[in-house]
Structure formats: C-alpha cells, structure tokens
C-alpha cells in the first residue's frame, strides 16, 4: 500500500500545534524541507527535540513555531551561535523558549528508552556535572549487583519523527548509508513517522540488500519524495554539506530583521522545496555535487 504523499499533506496531517516533533539527523540528513513546511503552515507551540537544534530549529524558533527545545548542543556547528535561539532564551524575543537540556549521550539514551519501550535508560554520564541540578528528569537508580548508583533518563516519545533518507519504497521501507545518527531510535520512539526520501525505489531494491534497511514500513505513516530536501545539510553520495550556507546564516540570523527577510524570501515566499531547489540554482548544486565512491556489492545467495 503506497503511503506516498506531498510534504504539504504530510505536515498538515501529522504535525499539530503543541506536538512534540523530532526532525533528526546528526549533521547528515537533516530535513530542512519539512522544517520549512512547518513554518509555512504556521504550526505553533511545538516542542522540538534534536541532539543539535542546528539552523533548522533556529529558523523554526525565529518563525514562532516552538515553545520548548529538548536538546544537547545548541550551536551552528563549526561556525558559532544559533542567534535566534539565543535571542529567545536570553531576551524572550520573539517569545520565551523553554529549554530541557541533556548531553548527547543523555538524548540518545532518551530515544533508546523510547524505542525500546523502557521506563528509563541507564548511563554513566552526568556525574560531577551541574546538569542533574537543573534538569530534574535526570535521576539515579541503585545498582542491584553492587554499591553505587547509576544515572538514568526517561523515555522520549515524539508525536512525530521526520526522517530523511537516501531511498525508500512507497510503503516506507527506508535505507540510509553514511552517518546514521539517532534516526532509528527516534523513529521507533515516535508515535508517527514521516519518511522523506531523495529517491523512491522499487521494493526489490530494498529487498536486495536487507542489511541496509533502517526503518520498516511498519512504523511509517507517510512517505514524501523530496529531492534535495536536506539542503543545506547533506545526503551522503547525493550532495555535499553547504558550509557556505551555514557560515552565511551567522550574519543573516544576527538581527531579527534580516532573518525575517530571509524567511520571507526562502520559506514563506516559496510553495515548497521544488521552488527552493530552482531558486538556489544550478551553480550551487553543481558546487555541492560529490565525485563517485561506490561501495562494492555483496552476495546474499539464492536459497531455494
């Protein structure tokens, strides 16, 4: 059964005001196309979770979509601050933003607990840091096999996880290579999953290499075919990370005015990712096109 739909329809159907939303992807495969559509549809009061809020949540915060972040690293990787998030946190502009903060490992553990249906997940980080003091959800349990306690975090269950992938079939069976981030954990932890794919392939392509499948159709609600949907993030083998855009965002986002102009031009002023791709122009895509580096093939064997 095909779950193919448009980004507009997927966001309208599955993202509601007040929802907890995870657009995951660690540097790799961050679905900016979905974030922009959420901005366009003027969703409000979202709780946004991500290890690294990145530019996409900076844009969504600036657009007034979010009331809270659940996160572990609040920066523009390799560049500097997320200025819109800082304005909201430091000065309440455009509105105050609640923060619920972990380390990377703490966030990963929350997703694992969610994906595994566990009431908590144990881990050894946090000891000696001030994080447990400011986040009452970081707790401890006694080790029943010896002395001492272990830190734990509770499960995170996003209402919807948005997962960008290299390829999926029309039911939502999806494959990723390159950085895997926390996508599998976030998807299984969530109540609903939107898969956004660079390519829609025949089910036979998936079944020819089952070890590469990271998300099964079983947990997928909608499949969106959105080529270049991760820019300025990247898709391994498809297009490079646009570091120029990451650097440029620092200047754009320093003032609310320039940021709003950018949103007007690149989000509100466009109908969707196809227009964005066209507007960005062939020169940029040419610059971001990697050379080839093909994996080998492996033989699964026919057994009949």
């Amino acid at each position: 059964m095909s779950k193919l739909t448009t980004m507009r329809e997927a966001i309208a159907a599955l993202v509601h005001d007040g929802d907890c939303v995870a657009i995951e992807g660690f540097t790799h495969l961050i679905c900016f196309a979905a974030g922009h559509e959420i901005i366009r549809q003027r969703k409000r009061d979202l709780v946004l979770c991500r290890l690294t809020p990145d530019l996409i949540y900076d844009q969504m915060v600036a657009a007034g979509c979010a009331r809270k972040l659940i996160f572990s690293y609040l920066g523009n990787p390799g560049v500097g601050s997320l200025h819109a998030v800082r304005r909201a946190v430091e000065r309440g502009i455009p509105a105050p933003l609640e923060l619920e903060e972990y380390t990377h490992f703490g966030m990963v553990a929350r997703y694992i607990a969610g994906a595994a249906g566990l009431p908590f997940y144990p881990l050894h980080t946090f000891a000696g840091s001030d994080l447990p003091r400011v986040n009452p959800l970081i707790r401890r349990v006694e080790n029943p096999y010896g002395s001492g306690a272990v830190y734990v975090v509770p499960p995170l269950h996003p209402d919807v996880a948005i997962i960008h992938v290299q390829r999926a079939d029309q039911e939502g069976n999806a494959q990723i290579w390159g950085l895997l981030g926390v996508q599998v954990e976030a998807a299984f932890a969530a109540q609903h999953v939107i898969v956004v794919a660079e390519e829609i392939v025949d089910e036979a392509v998936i079944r020819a290499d089952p070890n590469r499948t990271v998300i099964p159709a079983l947990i997928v609600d909608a499949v969106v075919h959105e080529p270049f949907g991760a820019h300025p993030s990247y898709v391994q083998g498809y297009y490079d990370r646009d570091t120029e855009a990451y650097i440029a965002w620092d200047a754009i986002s320093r003032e609310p005015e320039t940021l709003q102009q950018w949103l007007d031009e690149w989000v509100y002023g466009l109908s969707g990712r196809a227009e964005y791709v066209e507007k960005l122009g062939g020169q940029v895509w040419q610059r971001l096109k990697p050379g080839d580096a093909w994996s080998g093939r492996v033989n699964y064997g026919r057994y009949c």
Partner: protein
Amino acid sequence: MNDYTASEMMIVAAARMLADARVVFVGIGLPNIACNLAQRTVAPRLELIYESGVYGARPARLPLSIGDPCLVSGAVGVMPISQLLQYYLQRGLIDVGFLGAAQIDRYGNLNTTVIGDYQQPKVRLPGSGGACEIALMCRRVLIITRLSRRTFVEKLDFVTSPGFLEGGDARARLGRYGEGPAAVITDMGIFRFDRITREMFLASLYPGCTVERVQEQVSWPLRVADRLGTVAPPAEEELRILRQELDPAGRLRM
C-alpha cells in the same frame, strides 16, 4: 472431505486466525507454515518476523531453522537481535506470537524448560529461547500444540512462558504486557479463554471430533462453550497451497 490430516487441519485453523494481523512473530515448524499459508490466503499483507533478526521475510523454501539463510535473502530488513527484541517486540509492535509447549495448564501457562525438578530434571527441555518474551510482549498469543494428557496438565513443572498465571486479573497485574493467549489450536479443536476467569474452554471442534475424545486428552475437567462451534474443514485452495507450494515433501503436514 476426509482427505486431510489432523496436522493440515491445525495449520489451516491457525492460518485463519491471522486474518486481521499485520505482523506475526513466527516460530519454526507448524507456525511457520501456518503464517505462510495465511499470507497466501486471509492475510496477504502479513509480515513475518523471526527472532533471528529478520523482518518481512519471504522464504523461498520451508526453513528447518529460525535462522535459515532463505529467510534473509529478499527480506525487507535484517538487524541485530538486540534491535528486534527491543524496538519491535518490547516496543509492542508485534500483533501475534505463536508458541508451542511441552506442558500447558488451564490458564495457558507454558513449560518448555524441564519435566521434574529444575535442579534434578527428569527431562531437560530446551528452555525459553524467545518464548517468555513472546508470551509477554506480543499483543496476543496463539498456542499450537497436539492434545495429550502429558501436555495438558493440572500443574506445570516449571512456568517458562506466562499465560494468565493463576487466572482472573493475575496477568493484568503484571503490568503493561500483551493481552496473553487468545487461543490454543490443537489437532482436535480450538480452545479460547474465559474473559473473567481466564480459564480455557473448548470453543470449537474440527469435523469428526467429539468433546469426549478431547476430554480424554486433558488432565482437568474440561469446560466447553455453551455454543460449541465447528471449524470448517480445509478448503481445496488451502490444501492445494499447503501441499503444492509450502510443504511438497510433506514434512509438516503428516
């Protein structure tokens, strides 16, 4: 219509129970062939999941083991067992699990561990494997086993996989697990479980079987449904698929 074996009737009855299932946790042997039959009849969208780490298998032959290579080639996904047990089974994504047993009691508790004392066993059985977690975590469980007084016992020597424990709300009090056994599919008929007492009762008989013959193979005084059903015999198409496509060698049908 007498040209089918008791095993064929069991398999067909089990397959029909999967009509509304989306994902089934498949055991080897009868459950495997029942699931494959269901995929070809009542449940074309049924996905098979194996505890070896395979999701969406399409085996081209009848596997002898749960980890056969034919389950991998052409599957939707293959993953570490840790992921399957945690993110699929424990997360609550599996609709139906199939289990067999060396001993079963009236509340659908199962023993596959020992006959006799645990420390001084008369017969050492395989143990749980994945059975205990399947019994707890699948939304519902189908038990498939042949009738025999040695199997249908008053009291288990060991509880490997919990059914309804001592009955009533005992299982519900364990916490947020699956609903427990939905039916016991035998070679003479099908048992279901009372909604209040959780004791099993004979719900329907296969053609040619009687309550008396079932009672002979059960160690406790049998409860029987007020309106005892009759299971329709295997249809020709069901038998054709079974015999020609799934088990041409007749390994499991006999």
